[in-house]
């Protein structure tokens, strides 16, 4: 399969699964509670996945090697803003500014 066909498939499947997942609670489960253990796993998926994405998107190089470059500075700046309870948009602006600034020096 070509890369374009690949991404088209991803787009279509992500659209379909998002709609199905959003409909599942209101329609299929209709007010019945999830088993407690299932719920306990689901609420832990997002923190595990997001933390992993932070790492791979910050420290992955061109190939599969790890590297620390200007991105790490920008992400650390964004983390500081969020930790100080600053707004999301400020955090994103700081990430871009620090990364771009460090590259320009």
């Amino acid at each position, binding site marked *: 399969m070509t890369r374009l066909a690949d991404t088209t498939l991803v787009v279509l499947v992500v659209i379909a699964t998002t709609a199905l997942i959003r409909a599942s609670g209101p329609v299929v489960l209709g*007010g019945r509670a999830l088993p407690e253990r299932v719920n306990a796993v689901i609420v832990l998926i997002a923190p595990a996945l997001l933390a992993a994405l932070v790492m791979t998107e910050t420290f992955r190089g061109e190939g599969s090697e790890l590297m620390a470059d200007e*991105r790490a500075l920008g992400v650390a700046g964004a*983390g500081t803003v969020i930790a100080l309870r600053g707004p999301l948009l400020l955090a994103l602006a700081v990430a871009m500014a620090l990364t771009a600034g460090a590259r320009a020096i």
Partner: protein
Amino acid sequence: MRAGVPFALAAFVLAVSFGVVAEPVMGTGGALALSAFAFAGSAQFGSTAVIASGGSAGAAVLAAILLNSRYIPMGVALAPSLRGSPPLRAAYGQAMIDASWAMASRGAGRFDPDFMVGATLPSYPMWVGGTAVGVLAGDLIGDPAALGLDALFPAFFLALLLEGELRTENAPWIVAITGAGIALALTPITPPGVPVIAASLVALIGLRGSASREPEIKGDPVG
């Protein structure tokens, strides 16, 4: 609807960055279609990140599904407050984005579904329009790295993590730190996309029980 306006502004800026970064990966049509028909911020950013890093289509879809899985307990919580036929209930489900869902909670397990739809409405045109702006701007700005745009994805994921997932009682710090460690350890030795999916398996420690939480407000302005 007014309650949704601050989130709609944040959605616009995020959508612009999504458009800029997703256009070279997904194409103009793919980026716009995701925003218009999936309308799910973290899943869009997550699947795009996996593909951009060279991951397989399957890994990208799996990442999106896992990031969307929180809508299952959110929808379950919403369900008793919904009336009408299954298609109507499904339609209400499509209006679930994190911020609107949380704002529509009236306590004691009750939700105001029409308030939720109203709070979501301003975000939708901003999300799709912002994506269009980003897709078009991407061609004009040349090298995204020179603007630091490649730091936006990880910064956004970090914001979702710190604001939404870890700012709660019994915050799952151990799960997040373990997931991060697994991703770092696997990145040099497994195909792209695998480290992120493998890290999600840490959530299985929830099977030990006792750690259950209600789904709570997340930082993502659009799903």
